[in-house]
């Protein structure tokens, strides 16, 4: 439970957020410069000019009217900044141990964190000698090792290439599910938000413009964040195995999808895949004789246009899809709500997230 009622003066506007967040994982969405990072820093206690009230699980960490302003070291909040901010003079092990308190559970927690984030091979190396994705994992481990009651993650996957993203996202989900640490997750990527969070808030120019289910935020986000990416996230179970050289089949609701097979694709195993909006083809004619394995009829729900890009949302195979087209081709096809269309997705456009 995160109770926020805060104000922070920023150069262009005031950040004003009043919200009561009950979900374990909350996505913070909004365009660049809308105050998302400032919000995290305020909760972490790193913005001394903030006023108002913040309570975490009922404990007040800030209440300026009552003269309460816990310093950052007393808030027990794990902050993972966007650029990881590792200590360059310490090796990975030193970084992870930095915030650990001397207690009985220390060794066990260290082992667990190192295990979950798979950083054991990096422990003796210095931050300058590891990759960006590895640094993000170490920063995450360092924050978790302090046994925080809340994690603040600032675009942990921004600037990380899609393949690597697919490797880090599962770690985040592990942290969420196994360690049960609630988190606030800043992201540009609405698809990521939907995969990770149970609740979402949207900021614009420092003001809270939305609070609710991530799926709903997705619909409104296209209006507030033209830069946002809307990866389509599919969560399902593998169907009966076919031949070794064949793609695996993934059952999502009533629909079956052909997805790339790997050794863990045992029948009945659950999996989460993402499909980039660029990989969703839209046709107004029935598709036949096409190499793509996944072809489904559907209907246009909405078609937002920002700049030269169109973002049609399509209901097909029991899922809401986001596709990305040029504005010109969307106009040529005459995409508008209610229109019957077909979507096609190559099996290799499905990227395994977990």
């Amino acid at each position, binding site marked *: 439970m995160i109770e926020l009622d805060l104000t922070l003066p920023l150069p262009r506007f005031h950040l004003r957020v009043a919200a009561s967040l009950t979900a374990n994982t909350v996505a913070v969405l909004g365009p660049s410069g809308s105050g998302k990072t400032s919000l995290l*820093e305020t909760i*972490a*206690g*790193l913005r001394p000019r903030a006023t108002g009230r913040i309570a975490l699980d009922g404990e007040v960490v800030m209440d300026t009217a009552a003269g309460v302003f816990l*310093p*950052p*070291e007393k*808030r*027990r*909040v*794990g*902050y993972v*900044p966007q650029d990881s*901010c*590792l*200590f*360059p*003079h310490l090796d990975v092990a030193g970084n992870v141990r*930095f*915030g650990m*308190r001397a207690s009985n559970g220390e060794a066990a927690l260290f082992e667990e964190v190192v295990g979950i984030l798979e950083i054991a091979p990096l422990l003796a190396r210095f*931050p*300058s000698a590891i990759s960006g994705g590895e*640094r993000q994992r170490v920063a995450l481990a*360092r*924050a978790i090792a*302090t046994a925080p009651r809340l994690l603040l993650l600032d675009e942990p996957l921004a600037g990380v290439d899609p393949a690597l993203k697919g490797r880090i996202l599962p770690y985040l989900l592990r942290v969420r599910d196994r360690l049960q640490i609630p988190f606030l997750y800043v992201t540009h990527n609405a698809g990521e938000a939907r995969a990770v969070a149970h609740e979402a808030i949207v900021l614009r120019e420092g003001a809270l413009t939305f609070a609710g289910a991530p799926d709903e935020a997705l619909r409104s986000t296209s209006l507030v964040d033209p830069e946002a990416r809307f990866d389509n996230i599919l969560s399902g179970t593998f169907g009966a195995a076919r031949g070794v050289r064949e793609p695996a089949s993934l059952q999502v609701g009533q629909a079956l999808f052909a997805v790339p097979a790997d050794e863990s694709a045992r029948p009945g195993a659950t999996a989460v895949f993402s499909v980039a909006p660029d990989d969703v083809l839209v046709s107004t004619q029935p598709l036949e004789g096409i190499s793509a394995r996944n072809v489904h009829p559907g209907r246009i729900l909405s078609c937002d246009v920002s700049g030269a890009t169109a973002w049609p949302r399509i209901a097909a195979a029991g899922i809401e899809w986001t596709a990305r087209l040029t504005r010109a081709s969307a106009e040529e096809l005459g995409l508008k709500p209610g229109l019957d269309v077909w979507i096609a997705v190559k099996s290799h456009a499905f990227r395994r997230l977990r």
Partner: protein
Amino acid sequence: MSADDFSILLLTLRVAAIATLVILPFGIYAAWHLARRGGAARTLFETLLSLPLVLPPTAVGLLLLEVLRTRGPLGRLLDRAGIEILFTWKAVVLATAVMSFPLLVRPVRTAFEEIDPRLLAMGRSLGSGPAAVFRRVALPLAWRGILAGILLAFSRALGEFGATIMIAGSIPGRTQTMALAIFQRTHIGQDDAAMRLVGVTVVLAFAAVWTTEILTRRHTKRTGT
């Protein structure tokens, strides 16, 4: 080198080392606050700190003499406590400490300023108080600058002349450091003996400045992550 030369060298090294050690904590403290603060107070403080660099050393010496003489404000206190400073080796330490202080502070301040403030914020967020963050993050990240400052201050201390002669005199075996001995020997026509000491000082100064150069160059080349 004669036995005399050797004892002069030892006295000089000892005095310079003690002076550097004495100002080290104050210098680091001052540098830390200068690096973290802005505004008019900082400029004023910085100007005051730099005065010994630009004032004639003899002027600084005379000011110190005024403060410390038996009828002076501080001198009376010290006299009552039975502490004798003027014209003892302690006066040499005091003079060199005052003159070296700005040279210690500058590189240390620069090193602190180069630290990404977000690293300090991270340290706080990870549970360390301000003092612990200073010890665990700021000091280790600034060590090159601190070492450079120590070497610079030490080198300056080795050669201090003007302020020293004002408050410590040039008493052989007690307060006569190399800089003072070179002057005195030349004065009484022992040019060869003076030149031997000059040779020693050149070697010392060369080694100190060389090391400082290497340290500071590596420091500026180092890029953050």
